[in-house]
C-alpha cells in the first residue's frame, strides 16, 4: 500500500512537473489582447496590470516593437549614419509588414524593406519571414539590384551591423522575448535623454519601468542592457547596453507617437550611439499606416522582382 501511495504520488508530481514545463515560460495569463470592436482601422491593446512582472513588461515591449497590435504596417523612413567626425551618409527606405500570428500556425510576421536611396544601393530589397517557433531563424531573401536577381541568403549573424547602422541585426529585427532573462529594477521617472542629433530632450520625467535584460547566449556581444519602458504604452524608450566587460557601450533612444483614437503606438524617431567608435545612427520614420489591408501575396519573391532599380 505504501509503495502504491508513493507510486501514485510520484506519478502525480511527474504529471504536475510535465504540465508546468509544458507551459510556455512566463505565460502571462494576466495579459489580454483587447481588440477594438467596430473600428477596423484601430489597433489592439494590451493593458499592463498592477504589479506587473518584468517578463510581462517585456512581452508588451516586443508586442509594441514588432507592431503586433496591428494587422499590417507600412512606413517610409530615412536613416543617417554619422561618423565621429560628423560625416553623414543616409539611406532611405520603405517598410512593409504583415502580422500573421493571429491566423497562421507557422508565421509570426512577414516583413519587407526596400532601400530607396542613395542611387548606388537603390532598389536593394530584403524580404524576411519570421516564424512563430522562436527556435527558428528568419528566412531571408535579397533583391540585388546591381545583379538583377533574388538570392535567398543566410540570416546575418545576430551581432552584425544591420545595413551599416549602429543597430545589430538582432536589435533591428531578430531579437525575441525568449532570447533574454529579465529582472525588474524598479519604477522610476526617466531623467531625460538629450539628442546629440537635434538637441532635443526626450521623455524627461516620464514614468517608467526599469528592467535589466541579460542575454541567454554567453559569451555574447553584450552582457546586459537596462531597458526603460514607458508606462503609458509599454514601449522601451531608452536602452543602455553594456559590453561583456560590463562597460556601457551603447545608448539607444526610441521615440513613439501615441495615436489616442486608434490606439496605435508607432516608433517615429530612433537614435543609436556606439560609445566605443563615436559612430551614431538616426532613424526618422514617417508616412506610417496601420491596417491598410495589405495582402500576404505581397510578401513574396514576386514583389521583390517588381523592383526595377
Amino acid at each position: 500500500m505504501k509503495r502504491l501511495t508513493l507510486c501514485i504520488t510520484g506519478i502525480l508530481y511527474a504529471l504536475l512537473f510535465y504540465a508546468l514545463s509544458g507551459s510556455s515560460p512566463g505565460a502571462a495569463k494576466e495579459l489580454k489582447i483587447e481588440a477594438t470592436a467596430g473600428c477596423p482601422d484601430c489597433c489592439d491593446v494590451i493593458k499592463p496590470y498592477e504589479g506587473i512582472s518584468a517578463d510581462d513588461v517585456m512581452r508588451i515591449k516586443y508586442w509594441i516593437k514588432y507592431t503586433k497590435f496591428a494587422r499590417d504596417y507600412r512606413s517610409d523612413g530615412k536613416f543617417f549614419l554619422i561618423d565621429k567626425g560628423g560625416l553623414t551618409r543616409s539611406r532611405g527606405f520603405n517598410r512593409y509588414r504583415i502580422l500573421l500570428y493571429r491566423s497562421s500556425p507557422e508565421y509570426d510576421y512577414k516583413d519587407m524593406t526596400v532601400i530607396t536611396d542613395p542611387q548606388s544601393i537603390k532598389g536593394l530589397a530584403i524580404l524576411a519571414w519570421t516564424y512563430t517557433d522562436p527556435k527558428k531563424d528568419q528566412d531571408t531573401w535579397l533583391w540585388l539590384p546591381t545583379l538583377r536577381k533574388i538570392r535567398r541568403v543566410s540570416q546575418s549573424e545576430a551581432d552584425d551591423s544591420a545595413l551599416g547602422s549602429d543597430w545589430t541585426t538582432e536589435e533591428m529585427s531578430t531579437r525575441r522575448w525568449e532570447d533574454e532573462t529579465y529582472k525588474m529594477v524598479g519604477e522610476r521617472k526617466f531623467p531625460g535623454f538629450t539628442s546629440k542629433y537635434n538637441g532635443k530632450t526626450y521623455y524627461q520625467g516620464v514614468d517608467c519601468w526599469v528592467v535589466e535584460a541579460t542575454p541567454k547566449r554567453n559569451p555574447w556581444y553584450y552582457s546586459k542592457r537596462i531597458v526603460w519602458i514607458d508606462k503609458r504604452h509599454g514601449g522601451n524608450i531608452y536602452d543602455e547596453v553594456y559590453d561583456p566587460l560590463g562597460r556601457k557601450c551603447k545608448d539607444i533612444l526610441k521615440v513613439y507617437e501615441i495615436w489616442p483614437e486608434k490606439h496605435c503606438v508607432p516608433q517615429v524617431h530612433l537614435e543609436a550611439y556606439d560609445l566605443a567608435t563615436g559612430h551614431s545612427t538616426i532613424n526618422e520614420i514617417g508616412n506610417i499606416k496601420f491596417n491598410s489591408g495589405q495582402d500576404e501575396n505581397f510578401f513574396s519573391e514576386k514583389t521583390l522582382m517588381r523592383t526595377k532599380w
Partner: protein
Amino acid sequence: MKRILLMLILGALLLVPPLPAQSVELGCNMSVSGYLKNATAVKTHDDRGEFLKIRNTAQIETEYRISQNLHVFGIIREFYDSVFDAEKEYRQNRKLLCKTRGTDWLRELYLDYYSPVLDLRIGKQQVVWGTTVGMKILDIVNPDDQREYVLEDFADSRIALWMLKAEWSPKVNGTLQFLFIPDFENTFIAPAGSPFTYRAVTLGAERLAPLEEIGFHVSEENNKPGRSFKNSKVGLRWLDVYKGFEYSLNWLHGYEYSPYKTVIGTPLPRIIESNYAQVEHFGGSFTKTFTSGSLRGLTTRGEFVYTHGHKNGYGTEGSQVGVAKVDMWKSALVLERYVVTNWLVEFQYILMGLSREKEKGYRFLLGPTQGTMDQVETFLTLLVSTDFFNERLKAKTLIVYGDNNDWRVSPRFDFEVTDKINVALGCHLFYGHRDGLNGEFRDNDEVFTEIRFGF
C-alpha cells in the same frame, strides 16, 4: 580628344554642388536617377602599363507611375571606351567597340502591370533565373555581352530583349512565370584584336590572315533566326516555397545565343557561317536555408539545366573538324554561411558535361578557346566578402578554379566616399593553360579602378 572631353565632363559633374542623395522626383508620379562612372583597367604584365579599359558611362533611369499598378520604366545608357583611342593595338576595333552598339543605348524599357495574382511586364528587359556567382548555370534567358569576358556584373553584361513576362500566383508562395520572347540577339564576343578576345576568335583570324594577304577574301555570315512568331522563345518557370524548401522547375524553348560555326568551301574556305541551334532547356533549382538545428545559418542552393539539341564543334586542340548535335548539362551546388559576424563565405561546386565524350573519334571543343573538353568539366569557386566601418568599406574576393588547373582570382574593395560618390579598386588575376577559360587570358592580369557619381 573625346576622351579628354568626357573626362572633363565627368570631373565637372563630380564638382557640382551637393544634390539630394535620393532620385529626383518630378511631380509625384515620376522619378529620375542615374550615375556617371569611370572604369579604368591597366594590364599588369606589360611594363608600359597598357590600358585594357578607360570607359566612361552615363546612365539615366526613369520611372513614371501612371497609376498605382501601372508603371513605365526605362534605362538609357551610353559609354565611351577611350582604350580604343589610347592603345594602338586595339585601334582597329574602335568603331565597333568604343561606344554602345546599335540600340543598346536603350538598356531597358517596359510597362509594368501589377495585381495580387498577376504581374505583367512588357518591353525590353532582362529576366534572371539562376543565381550562381562568376559562372552562369540556369541564367539562360538573356544573351550576354562578353566583350570583357565575364568580368562585368552580369546585370550590366546581359543583353536585354523585347519580351512579355507574366507572373501568375495561384497560391501565396507559388508563382508560374511565362515568357514570350520574339526578339533575338546573339551573345556578343570581342573580335580579334580586342582586350578580351577569345582564343578561338584569335585562332580563326590567324588562319584567315595569310589568305587575306594573298587577296583571298573569306566572308562571314551570321544567320540569326528571323524575328517571327515561329522563331520566338517561349519559357515557363514554376517557383514555390514548400515548408521552407524553395524550388523551381524551368523550361525554355528557342534558339541558342551562341552560334556554332561551319566553314563552306574546299579546299579554301569561302564563307564562315554562324548558325544557331534550336534547343530545349529543362532545368530546376532549389534553395534551403537551415533556420534551426545543427546546420542553422547554412544556405544551400542548387541549379541544374539540361540542354537538348545543342550543337558543338569537335576536332583536335585548336582546330575544329566538324559540328555535331550533343546534349549538354550544367549543375551547381552552393553552400553559403556567415562564419564570423559579417564574413560571408560562399562555395560553389559546378559540373558541366556532355552526353557523350567523342564524335567520330574526336573530342568536343570548348567554344571560347577551342581546347578539347573532357566529358565532364569541374569548377570550384569560393567567394569571401565582408565589410568595415559601418559598411563604408566593402571587400570581397572571388576565386574560380577549373579542374585543368585553370584559375581566376578577383579581389575587390568598394568604398563609399559620400552618398553620391563611390570608388572601387581591385584586380583580376588569371592563371592556366591557353586552352582554359581563364588561362587564355593569363597575359591580361589587370588592376582596375572605378569612380561612380550617383544622383
